[in-house]
């Protein structure tokens, strides 16, 4: 009995300790949104020492390319801004407001950060008075944008200046400007690479595996940390099979539904197979963490920063989190996925949320909104500071993405008309579930660890199911 009590007590205490360490690191976007909502900025009117005469406003708001910072000086407006960034709404965004009000003292901006953004905003947008500026939720199809958002100008004109101007566009008109842009690559720790004696960033799957081997031989760091047990980190591997692995913007949405055996080994180190083979080989050759079943995502950020992890395969959004997880932010490097197509490297890229203006706002609010978005996109450096690809084409890449200089960014083209849901239909029906679930990538790790199926056997199964679903939806594989 005594023994049992001892064991029970020790269990209890260790368990409660573990519980503490588990909850120590809350998710980054934890701050409550209601706090953000109540903190309205100070009224701006007091700051104006000399009254500027209110400008004459046109009957219609101008297009985004025709408006410039400095126009309409003295305009008065009170803007409501809905954002998903609960983490920086009280800090960085307030700084933008103060900076913007040096130019436009009579425009006040109230941010509201919404924790459950996509869901909440989808409902709110359906009412006319949700505010003035928001991040356009992806649930609204592009054909519907015209009913909710102020047109910003002709897509072809805006595309000369801005990246991904066609993302929220329909029939040649753009309704949203991207706030920042993500690029898909691989996180690597520069200090570990140097210590391992890796001089050049690997460009092919074979070079990458060699680099991982060097890390294992020459350092104590884990060569590739899979973050297996978090689950979603496995699904992240799907992001590389399109642009990064083929260099073809049509691959994902246009060619994949029609392709014959798309997951087959192409033999030249490109295509989806090459992406998954990096994972399979790394796992089967013991180049990953000792026990993938007990990885810890929050803890992995600090480990990466301290140089205990050499590489992680995650989108560029993760860069800032890795930098902030410890003192060695300069060691955080980001490279393109190690695949070269005919000797050239590509990287899948795409816009984050886009800024959109309420179609039902008053003209002065629309103009003020245009000015503020213009400021955010061109002057605030928001995209650069967040480690993303800048929206303005002439802006330079942040230093973390310096390795992407000369690498062509590929944004997936949308599916052809009348085939909008073909990819989804086949993807769901075949249960390959690219970008939907993590199971197929988890299967790769399990197979590589257990020494069961080979990657070729796995991809053959996917191909067979893909083909069966193609038949079901009347597609003849080409």
């Amino acid at each position, binding site marked *: *009995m005594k023994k049992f*009590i001892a064991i*029970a*007590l*020790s*269990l*209890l205490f*260790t*368990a*409660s300790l*573990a*519980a503490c*360490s*588990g*909850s120590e690191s809350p998710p980054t976007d934890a701050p409550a949104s209601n706090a953000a909502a109540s903190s309205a900025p100070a009224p701006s009117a007091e700051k104006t020492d000399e009254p500027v005469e209110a400008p004459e406003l046109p009957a219609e708001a101008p297009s985004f390319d025709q408006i410039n910072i400095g126009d309409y000086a003295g305009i008065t407006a009170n803007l409501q801004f809905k954002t998903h960034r609960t983490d920086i709404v009280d800090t960085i965004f307030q700084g933008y407001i103060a900076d913007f009000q040096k130019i436009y003292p009579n425009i006040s901006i109230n941010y509201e950060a919404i924790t459950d953004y996509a869901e909440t905003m989808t409902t709110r947008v359906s009412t006319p008075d949700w505010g003035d500026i928001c991040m356009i939720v992806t649930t609204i199809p592009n054909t519907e944008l015209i009913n909710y958002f102020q047109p910003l100008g002709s897509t072809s004109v805006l595309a000369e200046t801005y990246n991904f101007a066609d993302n929220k566009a329909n029939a040649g008109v753009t309704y949203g400007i991207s706030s920042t842009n993500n690029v898909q690559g691989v996180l690597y720790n520069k200090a570990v690479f140097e210590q391992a004696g890796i001089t050049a960033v690997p460009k092919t799957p074979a070079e990458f595996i060699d680099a991982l081997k060097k890390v294992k031989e020459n350092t104590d760091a884990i060569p590739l940390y899979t973050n*297996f*047990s978090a*689950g979603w980190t496995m699904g992240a591997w799907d992001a590389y099979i399109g642009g990064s692995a083929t260099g073809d913007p049509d691959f994902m949405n246009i060619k994949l539904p029609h392709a014959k055996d798309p997951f087959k080994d192409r033999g030249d180190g490109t295509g989806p197979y090459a992406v998954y083979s990096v994972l399979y080989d790394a796992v089967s050759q013991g180049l990953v963490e*000792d*026990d*993938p*079943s*007990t990885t*810890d995502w929050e803890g992995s950020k600090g480990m990466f920063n301290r140089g205990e992890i050499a590489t992680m395969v995650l989108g560029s959004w993760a860069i800032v989190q890795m930098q902030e997880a410890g003192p060695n932010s300069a060691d955080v490097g980001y490279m393109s996925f190690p695949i070269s197509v005919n000797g050239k490297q590509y990287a899948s890229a795409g816009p984050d949320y886009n800024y959109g203006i309420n179609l039902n706002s008053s003209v002065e609010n629309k103009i003020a909104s245009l000015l503020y978005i213009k400021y955010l996109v061109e002057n605030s450096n928001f995209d650069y500071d967040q480690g993303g690809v800048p929206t303005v084409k002439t802006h330079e890449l942040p230093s973390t993405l310096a390795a992407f200089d000369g690498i062509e960014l590929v944004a997936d083209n949308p599916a052809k008309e009348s085939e909008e*849901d073909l990819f989804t239909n086949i993807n*769901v*029906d075949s*249960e390959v*579930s690219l970008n*939907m*679930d*993590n*199971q197929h990538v*988890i299967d790769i790790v*399990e197979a590589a*660890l*257990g020494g069961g199926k080979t990657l070729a056997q796995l991809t053959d199964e996917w191909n067979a199911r893909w083909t069966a679903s193609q038949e079901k939806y009347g597609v003849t594989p080409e």
Partner: protein
Amino acid sequence: MDEHRVKRRRAFRQRLVSQRSQQLFTVFVFLLIPLTLLGVFTYFPFAKMAQFSLYDMRYIGKRTFVGLRNYLDIFTREELFRTLRLSFYYLAASFVQLALALFFASVLSFKVRAAGIFKGIIFFPFLVSGIAIGFIFKFFFTRGFVLDTLLIFMGFEQSQLPYWLRDSQVNNIMLAATSVWRYMGQNMVLFIGAIMSVDPQLYESAEMDGANTWRKFLNIILPSIQTIIVLNMILSITGSISAFEPPYVITNGTFGTGTYFVVMNSMAHEKQKVGLAAAMAIVLMAIIVLVTAIQKIIVKVFFEEDKNGMIFSERRAMKKRLAKKRKEASA
């Protein structure tokens, strides 16, 4: 005419105020709300699910009627039906759990110093939320962490220890053990409640007859709390068939720990095969109904007292005795 009408009206009023109709009216009004809620939130969704199980569908988009194809898929696709085998791990664990709970309940029902504290400690895990337990045990089983440290302290080598959540020889046992840790306290509290209702005079008289604690447990406690044991067993067995939380929060069904329920959840929410998942749910329900029925029959045949107050084993013993007597008599 007038008289007649008055009479009828009075009759109606009388009927209205008569006790019987008032009773009926009250019953109807009181039942209206719970029955509506039950219908709207239990039976209607269930009927909808049964309907969905006949379709090839996602949450949004077109639905195609496919008849019983989803059900056929469940039984022909080995990777789906095979997951039911994992239930045996949880089944075995639930018996361990009930035995332990019964043991602690019996011990703690007698005079034990600081019984309240022990009850609290054993019951505590049940109060922790399932997600927190997932965190706790992920760290507990991590290589070189809590469990490994404890075992190394006891003399094991790190290299002798398996990867608790990765090695398919042990991972399901470990997950089942976490559910024992969590639910044992709840079973124990139920048992303690039942044991407390036993008349203490029985113990006294048993003591006078010279019964030791084991005999008291076997002959007084066990028969008195039989009903609650059977109930707990039914709950445990149905629970082990639909085991979900430990594998979902700790391993997310990886490395061969995906129970039927975990796979069903992933079909419904990740792979968006709503029809197939609905069919899986209905098959699961059928299995649970079947198992519960079998259990009921077994309990009825073996443990229920007949009109002479005897259970199966006693009847058999008596039959044997009678047969023996008859033999002796004939000899």
